């Protein structure tokens, strides 16, 4: 069997695993965004205690390996879950939780930077019109901060896609783990892994294009460097 026949044979299994990888990425980045936004707002707009707690969370998840976090969540927590009468998480749920909690810490930092990049006068102007702080954040600060954060957010999406291979550590068959199993079964490591790599590559290219398109659509006229500028 040549390379292409082999890849053709394993492709259905790889594609099923790719769906798992995409699900992990979407749920990880999505839940990470919601939690990260909450953390960023807490960091910027609350005082010492709450802001400090958010900071400890962010530092913890950025200063420890994702693999270790995943192992704690999947293998470390079940006894405590059982102790309070909960069922342990499935591999899929555990991987989503690990990716989401981890990504939240990074997204929180990107969002915090973006929020703080909005000139403070705009908040003053909004408040001076009688808007509440919450209204000002929602209508004035966030629409701009989210545009600013989009490039780093695109990186975060791609990183999460690649890091979703921690699924291996919770025995969840994602694209990476599927290719490992195939490599071992047929003794064709290069063929199996290169096929997986190409699939990752295709997904990353498609995502990057989509995000570049979204960025261009949301660009604020007059604010960015001219497209034709050198």
């Amino acid at each position, binding site marked *: 069997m040549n390379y292409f026949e082999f890849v053709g044979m394993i492709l259905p299994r790889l594609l099923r695993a790719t769906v798992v990888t995409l699900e992990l990425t979407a749920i990880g980045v999505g839940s990470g965004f919601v939690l990260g936004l909450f953390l960023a707002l807490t960091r910027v707009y609350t005082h010492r205690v709450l802001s400090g707690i958010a900071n400890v969370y962010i530092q913890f998840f950025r200063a420890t390996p994702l693999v270790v976090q995943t192992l704690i969540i999947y293998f470390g927590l079940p006894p405590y879950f059982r102790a309070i009468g909960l069922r342990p998480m499935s591999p899929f749920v555990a991987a989503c939780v690990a990716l989401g909690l981890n990504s939240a810490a990074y997204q929180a930092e990107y969002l915090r930077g973006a929020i703080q990049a909005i*000139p403070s*006068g*705009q908040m*003053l*102007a*909004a*408040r*001076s*019109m*009688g*808007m*509440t702080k919450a*209204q000002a954040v929602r*209508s*004035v600060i966030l*629409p*701009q901060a989210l*545009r600013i954060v989009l490039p780093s957010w695109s990186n975060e999406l791609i990183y999460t896609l690649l890091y979703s291979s921690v699924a291996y550590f919770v025995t969840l068959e994602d694209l990476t783990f599927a290719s490992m199993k195939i490599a071992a079964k047929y003794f064709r490591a290069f063929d199996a892994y290169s096929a997986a790599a190409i699939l990752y590559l295709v997904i990353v290219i498609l995502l990057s294009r989509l995000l570049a398109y979204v960025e261009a659509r949301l660009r*604020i*006229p*007059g*604010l960015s460097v001219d497209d034709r500028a050198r």
Partner: protein
Amino acid sequence: MPMDTSASDVILRVEDLHKRYGKDEVLKGVSLELRRGQTKVIIGPSGTGKSTLLRCINQLSVPDKGRVWLEDVEITQPRTNINQARAQIGFVFQDFNLFAHLTALDNVALGLVKVRKMPKRDALVRANEELARVGLAEKVGSYPAELSGGQKQRVSIARALAMDPKLILFDEPTSALDPELIGEVLEVMIQLARGGMTMIVVSHEMGFARAVADRIIFMEGGVILEEGTPAELFTCPRCERTGQFLRKITELYGETNGR
């Protein structure tokens, strides 16, 4: 402008405001009163507390002591709904502070929708009218980054006007502008003053002050040193310091802009 003495005509009353930043006492007991339709121009050296005074009026800065009334509502009272009070006090900033992600039209409409709870369609109609009033009918679809400084400042004036404020506070509205753009902004402000808008203007444009100020207030070191009509202040025999300052800024800024 004829002075009406009935107390009900007082739009704004500021009583003994004090404000401290760390060790520095920036406001050391400032009191003033503004009647309907009056324009008061505040002048004074940099760092004297003029901006702080304006911010303490709408509570963007919280004064340490003293009281502020908007008509018969005491806005320094903790129980007063401060957002409702601020919605009635326009504020125009030195550096415009337009919302960068919104067109001129949406900048003006935002407060109407969010604060006044006006339906979006009505808000846009009103915003169009206000922008036309400041001479920007052609620019409603432009984003702030696509406008000149003078145009930005006129949008920010339209944004304040749209809220139907009882008074407007201007904090050095032309200080960030290139000289050739100052005139178009002052022209709008002169029209407002002549149209009966109640306003406090921190500005060193003496031409403007002479044209429309009912009173000029000279502030220095956190207190009001002098208050009087333009004529009184320019010829004030008592107040050496005010005279010096006036001569200096007249030299610096000239008198031609306000017409």
